């Protein structure tokens, strides 16, 4: 067994008296699709910002891709991929320029950028659109391109923050094909979503309630544990017990 890609032990973030994330302890092994769920305000964003090296925790310990979350935050940023629905690509740059920009940011050499971008354009069937502005692409393609540039540097882990929000049902499923494909290549996927059917596609799910990880298991075990038929009901049971809202 190789070392887990994410390891946390009592990871905590406080803002004054408010404990946004409390004593999170979990591990995510390589190649796993890990669903990170919780109601609005449960502490998901706080936890993700710490894991991405953006926020320093208040206490506890954690490593991401083998790097320490306190002292090696720059290394974490270089060794993870990140994609959110809200911010992904520069709309006033072309498809190729976006690929080149992200690859450059992640420290790829010019030769690597050339090779990678060609492979990517081919894989996404976007060769003809290479010189088009991203703003002219349909949303579904943008999402796929966005995901692909987030993993262009072949990170050990990619964080996806509601990657499929507002996307049409067919594109949403195509997007999950990309997720599975990445996981099969050994990239660990850490994903948040409000679509409960997508929770079923994850190997394991954690559900945060009021800053605490209230449940963590495979979808089928969670359904058995809570005696219900769907992840939607598991989520509702847990989220209803929440005391705080955002």
């Amino acid at each position, binding site marked *: 067994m190789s070392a887990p890609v994410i390891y946390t032990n009592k990871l905590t973030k406080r803002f004054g008296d408010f404990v946004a994330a409390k004593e999170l302890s979990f591990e995510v092994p390589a190649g796993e699709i890990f669903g990170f769920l*919780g*109601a*609005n*305000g449960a502490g998901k964003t706080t936890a993700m910002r710490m894991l991405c090296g953006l926020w320093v925790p208040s206490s506890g310990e954690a490593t991401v891709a083998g790097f320490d979350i306190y002292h090696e935050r720059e290394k974490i940023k270089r060794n993870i991929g990140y994609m959110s629905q809200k911010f992904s690509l520069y709309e006033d740059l072309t498809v190729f320029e976006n690929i080149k920009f992200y690859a450059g940011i992640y420290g790829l050499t010019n030769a690597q950028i050339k090779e990678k971008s060609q492979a990517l354009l081919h*894989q*996404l*069937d976007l060769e003809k659109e290479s010189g088009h502005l991203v703003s002219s692409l*349909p*949303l*579904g*393609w943008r999402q*796929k391109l966005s995901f692909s540039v987030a993993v262009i540097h072949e990170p050990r882990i990619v964080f996806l923050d*509601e990657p499929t*929000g*507002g*996307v*049409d*049902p*067919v*594109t949403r*499923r*195509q997007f*999950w*094909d*990309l997720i*599975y494909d990445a996981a*099969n290549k050994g990239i660990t996927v850490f994903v948040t979503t*409000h*679509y*409960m*059917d*997508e*929770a*079923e*596609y994850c190997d394991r799910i954690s559900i945060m309630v009021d800053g605490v990880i209230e449940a963590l298991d495979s*979808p089928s075990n969670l359904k058995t544990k809570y005696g219900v038929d*769907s*992840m*939607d009901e598991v*989520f*509702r049971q847990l*989220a*209803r017990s*929440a005391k705080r*809202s*955002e």
Partner: protein
Amino acid sequence: MIQINHITKTYNKGIVRALSDISLNVERGELFGLIGPDGAGKTSLFRILTTLLLPDSGTATVAGFDCVKDYKKIRESVGYMPGKFSLYQDLTVEENLSFFATIFGTTIKENYELIKDIYIQIEPFKNRRTGQLSGGMKQKLALCCALIHKPEVLFLDEPTTGVDAVSRKEFWEMLKRLKDQGITIMVSTPYMDEASLCDRIALIQSGTILSIDTPEGITKAYGEILFGIKSSKMYQLLQDLRNSPGIASSYAFGEYLHITFKSNTNKISEELMTHLQSLGHTNLDLKEIEPTIEDCFIKLMTNTSSLQTKPI
């Protein structure tokens, strides 16, 4: 209550077609859902109906008033909650509400009954600046502000986007209560599972209406026998099904994949099960299921070739 006749709207000198020849009617007292993904044209339609945008062609009336000629009348008789939070962040909760009431020539007191159920939940924070509210509270305040002049028609543009499953449910319960008070509501959402909470829905994609009916009517019109299938290796199953000749469609739907056969005979499903077992699938389960709105949306979307997304 709302009549839309052949509305077309383009942007960027006609290059971007946001709405193509849209026609639909919403009855008085109806809770009508506009269901579709980002970029479908939902917001453009809302902006035309609320007189914030002019259509290229076509006509529309709201509460009997023309969306172009009678724009002032419409503004008095509708409430609009845009998708983007648009209240004054540096006013308090109460100040925002009072501002909207004053603008419409009324007071909070006069129409308090209408918003009471909702406002009571944010009243403890009435002296807090709106910018400091949580997302859920902002949403409730925005709804109160859209209601304070007792509109005949309420337009809600994606009120539940990015909202968790539990809060979404609560929001829909609020809408049900407003509808019971006689307000006509047009609401848009990208979440297909919310469709069943509407009286009637329009499925919209790329500026075109795919279907308009009751949720039951839409699922009844699916017209094919749909099966759910699962095995212990779901992703492998999806790929194997895509390569199986007898399968017409296969899509991931949570715990089960939803599939249709090219022809429905017992023999075909038995052959499929044998085939999948030979490929190493275990714990196979195949059962006939009722289609959901999302199944219908996918079918309608893929049947209209011009709307197809490019495959990976």
